[in-house]
């Protein structure tokens, strides 16, 4: 049986059943099955959690990217003397005209009702960092999800085998008793 280890984020590894006979005797089958079911539901709960986190990261990343695109656009237009003409979102379906003359600074919304003014190049650095760390978190979440999937599959296979073993034993016993 494999040793119970944990992955980098502390998710315990599922025990692997080598030979069912060695793992559990006939009387303990029910208890073992119950324990397996418990572990399986814990893993599935963790999986749901991680899937939610993944969704929220996946929606944050395009937002950061859009802001970064805009800042890049402002930087590329810094040299041109003409103001930028835009239509921006004043409210959900309401747009307004704006003329932006050679922008040097931008205000970034940092969350929690805080907004700071940055020069365009600082803003660019900050946004690229945020994008990078969001992408790294997403990678980690994906890694954890794959690890969890492995554990869930192992647990399901274990459960199936213990159950089959039990069914087979009962049948053999019944046949032997019937003779």
């Amino acid at each position, binding site marked *: 049986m494999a040793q119970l280890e944990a992955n980098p984020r502390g998710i315990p590894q599922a025990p692997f059943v080598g030979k069912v006979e060695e793992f559990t005797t006939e009387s303990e089958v029910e208890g073992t099955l119950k324990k397996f079911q418990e572990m399986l539901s814990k893993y599935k709960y963790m999986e749901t959690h991680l899937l939610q986190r993944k969704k929220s990261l996946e929606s944050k990343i395009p937002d950061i990217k*859009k*802001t970064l695109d805009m800042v890049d656009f402002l930087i590329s237009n810094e040299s041109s003397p003409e103001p*930028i*003409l835009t*239509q*921006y979102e004043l409210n959900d379906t309401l747009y307004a005209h704006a003329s932006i003359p050679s922008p040097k600074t931008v205000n970034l919304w940092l969350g929690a009702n805080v907004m700071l003014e940055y020069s365009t190049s600082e803003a660019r650095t900050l946004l690229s960092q945020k994008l990078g760390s969001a992408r790294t978190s997403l990678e980690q979440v994906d890694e954890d999800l794959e690890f969890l*999937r492995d554990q869930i*599959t*192992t647990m399901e296979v274990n459960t199936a085998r213990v159950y089959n073993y039990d069914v087979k034993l009962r049948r053999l016993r019944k046949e032997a008793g019937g003779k």
Partner: protein
Amino acid sequence: MKMLDQQDEDSADTEVTWEDQKNINAFSRLNMRIQNLEEAYEEKKKEKEYLDDLSSELELADEDELIKYRVGDTFVNLTLDATQSRIESEQETLSKELEQFSTKIDGITDEMSKLKVLLYKKFGTSINLER
């Protein structure tokens, strides 16, 4: 779920070695990965189609007209040339990403077929590897 008849059940090898478990886990993991990749691929393909439609429409557009091009969440008035060059570079990026995705998808499909052969050999009817 299909139930095995008794003969199959008796001949079914109930011994699953650690190697087999690793293969089963790898198959499940690759399956999950390929589903995510295929979803992302479809989305990018749609985006690229939008851009392609856009560029063909722009070919018929008036030279002097300023085009409201969406950058981020706002619209910026750009000349036809500037718009076209932006669209071109975005199309290029998307094509590259689509290529990467499809190479990954092909690689994963190959690995999954290899694993299928191994697992069907060992487990025959006791295992179901189709989606």
